[in-house]
């Protein structure tokens, strides 16, 4: 029972990470019908830039080991800003080099170009930080918090709180503010949005900034749980994409739901057979695609003939 409770909680925390990335896919897919297949490498960039910021703030070189004492909540917040800023800038670069020239062209050229961009980011990271994983202490320490007999890792609580807060904020922004309405208008119908005086290109760039920043944030949040590694991106992004498919790629709330479901599934399967986690997730995807290809909360698009 206690084990189950712990697993559920870890699953929710991991789900928060997936939700952040999945919502990022939703934001750019809504506005441009494209998204970044190299998003995983943005998580890597976010995590490593933040680690470097932490090291610089502690007065060390960027390849020195990070000690628990170097990571206080304040510097963690600063590094968070650094990491998301860098990934946001990467998002703008991605849009102009790999998305805009290819969006709307047949044959999914943008899939290849965004993967190419991701490979460049990953190998740049490899050149700077090297292949070995970097353990990152949590700003809240590693003392397990005991509650009702179950132990909770502080970083997981932090991840869950931050991701839920960010997702709620996003939901409010999308539904209540002018900016959010503009984004939804562009997602619904680009031409109509232009005619209504919305600056579509600005909205689209904004979408990539937001989506990339979310990936950077997710990278920083997950690093203390899994350790930061140059190779961690692909599977994380893939699971986040699976989450988006399960929840419904065109529905932000669906993506959030999908993310948490995916985290829970992974944690529960992990209890039973850790090595079956990935396999279970991709089997689920195939079942969902067979039964409800538009996702749990998605809307089926009807092609006009």
């Amino acid at each position: 029972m206690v084990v189950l409770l712990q697993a559920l909680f870890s699953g929710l925390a991991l789900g928060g990470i997936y939700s952040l990335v999945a919502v990022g896919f939703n934001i750019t897919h809504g506005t441009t019908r494209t998204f970044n297949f190299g998003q995983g490498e943005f998580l890597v960039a976010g995590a490593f830039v933040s680690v470097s910021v932490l090291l610089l703030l502690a007065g060390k070189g960027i390849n020195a080991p990070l000690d628990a004492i170097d990571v206080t909540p304040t510097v963690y917040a600063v590094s968070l800003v650094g990491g998301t800023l860098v990934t946001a800038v990467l998002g703008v670069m991605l849009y102009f080099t790999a998305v805009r020239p290819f969006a709307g062209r047949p044959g999914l050229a943008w899939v290849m170009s965004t993967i190419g961009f991701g490979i460049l980011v990953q190998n740049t990271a490899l050149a700077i930080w090297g292949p070995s994983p970097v353990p990152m202490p949590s700003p809240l320490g590693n003392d397990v918090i005991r509650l009702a007999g179950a132990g909770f890792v502080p970083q997981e609580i932090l991840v869950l709180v931050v991701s839920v807060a960010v997702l709620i904020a996003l939901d409010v922004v999308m539904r209540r503010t002018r900016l959010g309405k503009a984004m939804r208008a562009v997602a619904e119908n680009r031409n109509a949005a232009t005619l209504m005086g919305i600056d579509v290109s600005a909205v689209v760039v904004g979408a990539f900034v937001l989506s990339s920043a979310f990936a950077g944030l997710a990278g920083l949040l997950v690093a203390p749980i899994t350790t930061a590694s140059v190779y961690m991106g692909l599977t994380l992004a893939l699971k986040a994409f699976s989450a988006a498919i399960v929840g419904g790629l065109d529905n932000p709330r669906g993506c959030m739901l999908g993310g948490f479901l995916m985290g829970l599934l992974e944690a529960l399967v992990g209890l039973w057979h850790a090595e079956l986690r990935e396999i279970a997730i991709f089997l689920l995807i195939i079942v969902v695609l067979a039964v409800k290809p538009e996702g749990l909360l998605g809307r089926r698009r009807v092609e006009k003939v």
Partner: protein
Amino acid sequence: MKRLHLAGVVAAAAFVILAPFITGNGFHLKVLFMIGVNYLAAVGLNVLVNHTGQKSLGHAGLFAVGAYTAALLTTRFEWSPWLAFAASGVTAGVFGALVALPALRVAGPALAMVTIGFGIVIEKIVSEWQDVFGGQAGIYGVVSPSVGGTDFGPREWVWFTGALCLVAHLAVRSLLRGKHGRAFRAVSHAEIAAESVGVSVYRVKVLAFVVSAITCGFAGALVAQQNQYINSDFITFGLSIFFLLIVLFGGSSPAGPLLGAILLTLLDAFLARWPHIQHFTYGLLLLFALYLMRDGLSGAIGALARKVVPSLGVPPALPTAVGDWQLRAGEVASPDRPLLEARGLRKAYGGVVPVNRVDLDLRTGHIHSLIGPNGAGKTTLINLLSGIVAPDEGSVVFNGRPLAGLAPNRVCRLGLGRTFQNLKLFVDMTVLENVEVGLHAHLDAGMWHTLWATRTAVREEHEARDEALRILDFLDLRDKANERAGSLPYGLQRRLEIARALATHPRLLLLDEPAAGLNPQETGDLIDVIGRIRDRGITILLIEHHMDLVMKISDHVIVLDRGEKIAEGPPSEVQRNPRVIRAYLGDDDAAEDDLPPGIATAGGHG
């Protein structure tokens, strides 16, 4: 072209035979072997990626299936290495069909993601399930094929791989030049249009996946048997990307995979010492090769060659006298019943009900017109009849057969052809090829014949070409046969859609606004064309807004308004029907200027 190809094949074969005599250097031979392996993987992937337009990012998984099949069969089960090699292609093909299953439901990026998922699952299985696959430690002692008791050495491997590549090239080339090749390209251009002319999009996609899986599986088996070892480190996402890079960089022509395999294998060998730079280069290539060369290196070279030597771009001459086109006689199920009977058809999208309990009887040999104001549900009705949209309620019986639940390609094969209001031509294919795709369902040569270009297959292809030319003759498009469909003027594109639909030998032809966007001259020609089609024994249902056209040629007019049938009958009766006039005009005092001419004269003043 034919001679150029033959010369190329002979040169390549001579090179493969002689190279191992010229160099005994093990490294050189290994590089040659790897070019062959990568070519083999790419030659099938080219069919999937460049011709069918499906992106797979998980072919490392299929490579693994081939490699581990050969490894396990020769070590655990002590199969003969030759048999194990053959089996690796078979199992990879089965897995390829499995990967293609989701293609039934999803397309585009979601499908690409599914293929990545497949690759990762296979990678996880071979690295985690150590009892069977050995994980990172791998499987030693994989048996290599041998001739006369001696195992293959580096030379034999080059010859064996070269021979396989040659066979694969010839088979894939004839596959792409025949009906399947056209179907692949048709599916990559416009899936719905392909379905509407009798091509099963799903089967075409599965076939493309299976072809690419088989060659990729053989590539895997080659590597496992040549190294006599395989472990999980071979199977990475990077390998999938590498295969994809070869076909994207090489381009779609048969020479594409070869160029791509040579250049990228050499690049791989040169840069192997600096893995950072190696991967960085792949990233740059993925990002920028697509900017510079839309159809890869072979496409760019081909375009350049045609510019320098214009005779290369001249299409082969077509036979001049081909005779008159005739509709194939089909069976008539029940001559006394209407050709098509629809009962209580209904379709709702949320609160909008574009078709609400409509009954329809279409009589053999008649020209029926379906008219009604914009938004009356005319196109939805045609989509229901042709199987593109499934009705919520109601039934359709066509020529004695119920159409419920049939895919559009099945409906088409029963003899129901159609055109589209928004043109859906295969724009990058020639006019002739567009019509030949329409003949797809009538070409029966089996896969075996197509792959080896047997006499049966060649004869059938010639017959198909001649029949397509007869149809083009019939519709006065003959002189455009070798032009790109997308480059035709709008009016001719509309007519080409009719030609493509005729090629399916329909008993009933549904024309969705065939006169939209035509000038008066072209509209006049169209009236003539529709009459001639009817005279060949084809029943017609057309949607039209040009009332003079409708009134002139129809035997029977059906009027829809807001999803319901409000009137039907001979044109003269319908013109006088007060409900029809009201539907077009609104209730009482709407402006008569808005009336379509046919209705205005007969209804407004009559």
